[in-house]
């Protein structure tokens, strides 16, 4: 019995040390983004499991390569932020490699650290374009979007690509152009939607921003295209708007009628309360004088 306890006591620290030396598993993923057919960038996302939940890994070095893991193909050396994310923009130096083929693979690589094992990740994409066009005959407004991929010689339409299509909101979300939440390209890689949103406030010229967004597509990655159109209602700012005395103005522009009413009531009621406090003082004086 004593021997068993001794063996157990000796074994516990070594088991604990063995557990400490086990490195945590790191999950690395890459996402490809292209905005308005120009800016190409990669976002690296790092996560690890802590208390059965995935948590972002901050401050982790990640190297991003284009097609091959060599110094000549290095896109950027990154450090993840507090959300475990890091962004690498495709540099002009890699233009020749980028133009050489129609399909590319981005490689992500983290070196082993004291806490994490080394990890790699890939994101393969086809070079693509997204084009937005609009037509309007006064009453009916139509938005059409074409998604094309490069096959080595020509740009061809990509069918069955799901996308969001509508008006860009300040929050970044999209107000759908029609009744459906998403649209899918036909066999020619095209989507056509009637723009059914009426009386939408625009800027001073009535401009609104149409946006088509392909998200997390296996072949194309994340694509966004925007177009500004004068389909909204022109909202001209009233320079005197904030000078008005209204219920929604600041505290310094309270309507006079409200000030009058509020202060009349407050003065009336608190005047009565103060009067009653004086009555208590009077009762006190009456008591003192009767006692003397």
């Amino acid at each position, binding site marked *: 019995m004593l021997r068993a306890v001794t063996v157990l006591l000796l074994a516990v620290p070594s088991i604990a040390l063995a557990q400490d030396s086990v490195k945590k598993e790191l999950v690395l993923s890459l996402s490809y983004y292209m905005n308005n057919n120009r800016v190409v960038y990669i976002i690296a996302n790092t996560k690890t499991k802590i208390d059965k939940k995935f948590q972002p890994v901050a401050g982790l070095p990640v190297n991003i390569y284009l097609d091959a893991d060599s110094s000549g193909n290095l896109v950027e050396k990154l450090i993840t932020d507090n959300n475990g994310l890091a962004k690498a923009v495709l540099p002009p130096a890699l233009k020749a490699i980028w133009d050489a083929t129609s399909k590319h693979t981005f490689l992500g690589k983290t070196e082993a650290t004291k806490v994490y094992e080394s990890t790699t990740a890939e994101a393969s994409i086809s070079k693509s374009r997204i084009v937005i066009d609009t037509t309007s005959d006064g009453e009916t407004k139509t938005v059409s979007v074409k998604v094309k991929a490069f096959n080595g010689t020509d740009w061809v339409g990509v069918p069955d690509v799901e996308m969001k299509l509508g008006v860009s909101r300040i929050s970044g*979300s999209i107000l759908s152009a029609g009744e459906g939440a998403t649209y899918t390209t036909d066999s020619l890689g095209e989507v056509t939607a009637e723009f059914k949103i009426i009386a939408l406030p625009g800027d001073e010229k009535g401009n609104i921003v149409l946006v088509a967004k392909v998200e997390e597509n296996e072949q194309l990655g994340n694509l966004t295209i925007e177009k500004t159109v004068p389909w909204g209602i022109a909202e001209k700012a009233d320079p005197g708007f904030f000078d008005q005395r209204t219920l929604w103005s600041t*505290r310094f522009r309270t309507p006079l009628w409200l000030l009058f009413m509020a202060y009349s009531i407050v003065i009336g009621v608190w005047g*009565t*309360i103060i009067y009653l406090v004086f009555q208590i003082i009077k009762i006190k004086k009456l008591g003192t004088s009767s006692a003397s």
Partner: protein
Amino acid sequence: MKNPIALTNEEIISDLLPQKFGRRGMIWTGTLLFIALVGLYAYYRQLRYGLVVTHMRDYASWGIYISNFVFFVAISLVGSLITAIFRLANVKWATPLTRIAEIIAVSAIVFASIIIIVDMGRPERFTNLFTHGRIQSPIMWDVIVISTYFCISLLLLYMPLLPDLKIMLRFKETSTKALQKLYKFQGSFWKGTAEQFKVSEKSITILCIAIIPVAFSIHTVTSWLFATTYRPGWDSTNFGAYFISGAFLVGSGGVVVAMYMFRKFYHLEKYITEIHFEKMGRIVVLLCLLYLYFNINEYMVPAFKMKKAEGAHLHELFAGDFAIMFWFAIITGLIIPILVLLFKKGRRPLPMFIIGIMVVVGAWFKRYLIVTPTLLNPFLPMQEVPASYHVYFPSWEEWAIAIGTLAGALLVITFFARIYPIIPIQETITEQHELEEK
């Protein structure tokens, strides 16, 4: 049941002087203190870790705290009904109930203020209301009107207490030295002269007149916190009257419960008689019918039109996630009380006590139903929020704080009854003399 006419002054004084806690009183107070302390610990956790310990999120940004606040404000209105309205209407039978009603009003309004500060998350920012507050905001009106109502209620509690303080100073053997010091500080100047009575009576009449519009304002303004917000279930012109009728009902229910408890445990059967229960029963049934009328208005008109968002909100209440709570509140807090109290046997003390509890409990859940389901069904749903934001069930910290404040309010009433006479002694004696003269 003994008629108070048959009692001597000494008997009345002996019966009504504050009594020390017995064994049951100690257990009651200890339990309340324990609940309040658990609430205080939960509040410490909220201060330490932030409002994230609650389950309030972007959708249900007003939860159990605001429901509790509306409940407290509602129950406080009874002070104006029993003390002021009955006094001005010369309703003599209500005299033994005035102080009970007034201490319920004061304790409720104190905890209404506390719970709203708890809901703020950062209590030190309360002063921002005064340094940056806008008089255009109903929240500012609520702050002003609650503080005003508290002051008037306190005066209305204090002024009729002055003659009783003199009596308590006379009977030193029935209280401790510390209490004698307190009585002396508060009322040693009261000599009971005709002039003092004249000034006091005039002041109490002014207070009774002043408290009625302030009481109506306090709950109307609280209803406007909701009605001035464009949301399904709140977008109503009916809200002021709907809230006030509900407030008088829950307040009266609270007074009935307190009447029964004080009568039973302080042996006040000679002063709070079956006639008081009979009359309060009639008032409660009238208020139930009135509140039912406003409920029908509040639900039937939008249900007839069934606008999309209002329809979703009503479906949630009538047959959705909140249906059990909704029908519990309506049946327990309104339908059963009406059915029971319409009959004379239902207006006896014990059935009245049970009905009083049902009214108060039903009213609490009704406030929860006014606040939460509406917030979960906005006209313009938020985008891309976690699924958990679409439901709300309070965390243990929220329950502990809310129940802790309820225990706190009961503690204030309990300690008040330990220190001061819960039935006005001098007024009871005076009324007895008047009856004898007649």
